[in-house]
């Protein structure tokens, strides 16, 4: 259903409901697209689409609804370039490379924000998406499943892989640092 984008009352309700989430939508776009200019365009497109389809939003959680629109926008516009069809089949990924031995104390060194961001950005698409929706946007497995269009169990296994890859990167960066 497409509503009248010129209805002022509707536009006002939309602004109040959607604008407070702009930073989060932008953050997700940056991690999904890994490019600032594309993220700007995708976020703007997302808000215009959301306003247009605001009538299909039935109250409840505004954030997952915006995230789903953003994700579709990213996929539709950037698939050929970024949101790869080079996507890895769930099972084709070899088990993440485990560090041979964990440091004996098993304590992870503290890492600065930039290197954590870089490690997250380096993850393959579907794992990066899962981990950002979970750790940054703080969504539940059900909400992530709905946005990504996969079963809840797949969300858990994607998070397991995402975190294992991050942990391997974390530990190997530590080895280099020592």
């Amino acid at each position, binding site marked *: 259903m497409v509503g009248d*984008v*010129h*209805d*002022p009352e509707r*536009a*006002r309700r*939309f*602004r*109040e409901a959607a*604008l*407070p*989430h*702009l*930073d*989060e*939508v*932008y*953050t997700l776009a*940056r991690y999904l697209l890994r490019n600032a200019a594309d993220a*700007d365009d995708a*976020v*703007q497109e997302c*808000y*215009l689409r959301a*306003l247009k389809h605001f009538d299909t939003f039935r109250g409840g959680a505004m954030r997952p609804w915006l995230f789903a629109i953003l994700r579709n926008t990213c996929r539709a516009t950037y698939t050929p370039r970024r949101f790869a069809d080079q996507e890895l089949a769930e099972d084709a990924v070899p088990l993440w490379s485990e560090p041979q031995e*964990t440091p004996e104390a*098993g*304590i*992870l060194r*503290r*890492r600065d*924000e930039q290197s*954590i*961001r870089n490690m*997250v950005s380096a993850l393959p698409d579907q794992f990066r998406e899962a981990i*950002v929706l*979970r*750790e*940054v*946007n*703080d969504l*539940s*497995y059900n909400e992530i499943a709905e946005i990504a269009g996969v079963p809840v169990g797949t969300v*858990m*296994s994607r*998070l*397991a892989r995402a*975190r*294992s890859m*991050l*942990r391997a990167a*974390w530990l190997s960066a530590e080895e280099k640092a020592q």
Partner: protein
Amino acid sequence: MMTCDEAKVLLHGLIDGELDMASARGVEAHVAGCEQCATELRQFREMRHAMTGTSLRLAAPAALRSRIEAAISVPVARASQPSRRFLLRGFAFGTALSAAAAASVVLFVTRSGEDERLLGDVVSAHRRSLQAEHLADVRSTDQQVVRPWFSGKLAVAPPVIDLAAQGFTLVGGRLDTIDGKPVAAIVYRRGVHVINLFVGASANAGHTAALGEAVQGFNTQRWSDQGFRFIAISDMGADELRDFHIQFETGLRAGA
């Protein structure tokens, strides 16, 4: 008994609080007897803590925010002010900058000049604190550390209230400037949402009721009490920020 392969996936459900009781107990039982899985669980938790405590989060650039506000504000101006419609349409087709100017005209049109300047300053200070990742000059979740830090830097040290039990984590404090005057900024966080609470001296020692307003996509709450003037701003929902105000007031009254 659960195998390591099963546990390695399920322990993420455990970390995220997404398992039913029976599965959670199964994973815990496995971890209790398996040193390797126990180490992994601990590391994943540390990692998660570092990631959620770290700002993985980014702030939308001001230019993008203005562009979007302008794009979705135009219809409002059209209906309420026919004479401005023409002007705004002109702006909308112009540069992003003039569109932004048009948007702020619409947003501020009902506010007094003083309020306008004040809230504009508050929004800029809030954005700056997020963008520069310069939230706090003193970082601590302990009010006994944050409050004394302000002494000597401001005429009156602001009240700093521990609201951890109410779900608002103290991040720290810094000095900022609002309306040309130095003020205390006390920073709280709930989940991914940052709250800047600006505290300045108030001419009036009494209590004034809180006023909630949305400004440029942020929610704000303003009130005065005990000789202080408070302005809270955040991207959290209006209800949540009102709750923050209530909890803070309750804490202040209790002399916490």
